[in-house]
């Protein structure tokens, strides 16, 4: 495996060729905030939290979908980037109806954790308070609450790329987008859902939850993704 050299925040480091900037940063001990990214799912660069400055580039680049190149000079925590990240979180908070105090994911929510880490304790933007589709608890085990969705599509990718069911999908564009089940039906009537629960586990907020969960009760486990992807790569289940 060939290795390339990059300069991150003035310090030279190395990364395997073909690595993304996010991987390069993390391998060199520089942490970048992410929400839509999850190891084991295809990166999509949707949440814009991992934006970095690359010398010579005319715009900010999402680290999760940008391939690291030999000799790249990268800045990850400039004043401008930190400001943009905070603004991104504030916009996410204002977009739907996030009520952390009574949320099932209180304590395990990645959005809330990032807000705390970046010092976002309120939103400067007016809350949109949108009227959203009703909570869907028609499924045997899982529930879907659009109020808490940040449109990261992790659930959709896990369902499609890991489980292979493609039950979940997205309708609409921009702030009007919504997670849908099959061709827009209730979850309980879905014939494609395998009830595996991967979508619930990869959801970074309380949007997808186990039915019956009470405040701050959700615990999400994403370790299975690595295990499944790793097993497939190593052909652990080659008898299939």
């Amino acid at each position, binding site marked *: 495996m060939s290795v390339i050299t990059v300069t991150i925040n003035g310090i030279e480091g190395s990364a395997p060729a073909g690595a993304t900037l996010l991987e390069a940063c993390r391998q060199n001990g520089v942490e970048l905030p992410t929400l839509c990214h999850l190891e084991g799912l295809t990166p999509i660069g949707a949440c814009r939290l991992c934006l970095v400055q690359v010398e010579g580039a005319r715009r900010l680049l999402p680290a999760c979908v940008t391939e690291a190149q030999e000799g790249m000079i990268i800045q990850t925590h400039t004043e401008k980037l930190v400001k943009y990240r905070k603004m991104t979180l504030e916009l996410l908070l204002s977009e739907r109806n996030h009520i952390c*105090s009574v949320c*099932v994911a209180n304590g395990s929510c990645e959005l809330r954790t990032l807000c705390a880490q970046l010092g976002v304790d309120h939103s400067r933007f007016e809350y949109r308070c949108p009227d959203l589709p*009703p909570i869907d*608890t028609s499924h045997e085990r899982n529930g879907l609450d659009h109020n808490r969705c940040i449109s990261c599509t992790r659930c959709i990718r896990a369902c499609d790329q890991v489980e292979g069911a493609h039950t979940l999908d997205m309708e609409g564009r921009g702030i009007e987008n919504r997670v849908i089940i099959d061709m827009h039906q209730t979850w309980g009537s879905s014939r494609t859902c395998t009830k595996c629960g991967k979508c619930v586990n990869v959801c970074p907020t309380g949007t997808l939850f186990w*039915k*019956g969960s*009470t405040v*701050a009760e959700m615990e999400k486990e994403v370790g299975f993704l690595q295990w499944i992807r790793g097993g497939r790569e190593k052909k652990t289940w080659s008898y299939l």
Partner: protein
Amino acid sequence: MATMLRIEPVTRIEGHAKVSIYLDDSGAVSEARLHVVEFRAFEKFCVGRPFYEMPGITNRICGICPTSHALASVKAGDAIMGVAIPPVAEKLRRIFNWAQYIQSHALSFFHLSAPDLLLGFDHDPATRNVMGLIQKFPDVARKGIRLRGMGQEIIRILADKSIHQAWAVPGGVRQPLNAEKRAAIQAMLPEGFETIGLALELLKKSFAQFADELTTYDFPSLFAGLVTHEGGLEHYDGLLRFTGSDGTLIEAGVANERYRDYIEEASEDWSYLKFPFFKPHGPYNRSESAGMYRVGPLARLNVCDFAGTPRADEELASFRKLGNGRTVTSSFHYHYARLIEILFALEKIAETLDDDEILDDWVRAEAGVNRLKGIGMVEAPRGTLIHDYSVDRNGIITDVNLIVSTGHNNLAMNRTITNIARKYLQGDSVTEGMLNRVEHGIRAYDPCLSCSTHAVGRMPLVIRVISPDGSVVQEFSRG
């Protein structure tokens, strides 16, 4: 020309309120009104949420008695699931509730009312508060504050947080008790017993100086509260009993699901707080106080046949001597009843913890939706609390009705302040002592106005300009 006097804001209560006193042409008090001016909308925005989130949402109604709201809510949830929860879970919920009684009653007595009772109504208002109490009676104040802290600490030990916990859930509770936690609670109890003994002694000694107030706060009404199936003092479960002023049984034990046959809520356009009344004695008529009943500590001790613990039963016997031997009708004695309930709570916690069964770790029953309606009724420190939910087949809330403790006492509170205004208002000159008696009259009920204005309602806005002599010279109104 009719004149109006206004007291605003009413202090040392939970929430916000104002009082208007109406004088007739001869200058005598015609009526006093307690206006509850907060507006909230829990019954509206809970619609659409899953029923198992309701304890977490409704306990945010209040920071003083989130425990009571959580318990009423989880009982409604139990009913929707159609489950009998594990016996140990019920015992743990009861300890949780008694701890809530200790902290809430201690707050009411020591922090809010003791300044009136121990410093006197005519004491300088600048220091007639808990700080003044600390200066004059440092030992009482410190013990009272520690007693409240103890109630909070028991709740924290059980539920990890002293307020807004998510420990009690439909089907039971989330974590069991362990031996270490039990020992920590048990170690706190002796100090609690000592403090409550001291408070009872102080309060009983003070009765002589409040002879006037005792009679002013005295009026006939019905009383309502939960009792055990045997007729004992009950705070968590049981049957709803109504008795008359003389102690006669009006309804010996109404099943929780049938509360709507007995309680109806009326509204007035000058307050967000609804006016529940005893339906069989209706129709609603505020001026005649038709169907007026009282709830809370005084009512619970009036409706029960016995307390069920040795020391509380002993106190109950001396309490009853203050009335006709069975029923005490002066609202002034809410304070005494409150202290007896703290004693009862301490005794019950000690008794319940004594059994090793309490350490069992099977504390949660699982079930889906098995009923489309669930009613949870508990006795909150301030009185009977009802959470009434309807859900669809997926457990999503379609309708919520909350009847909170303070609401039940609304008619009685208005009656009390009218009596006080009549007794203590001389002409139209308002003295500080009179103002405070009116406030204290409300405070005796320990009203929680933040809780009681959870409903959707609309009150016309009235702005009155009052001249220095108290007459209404101009009025703007909207709605």
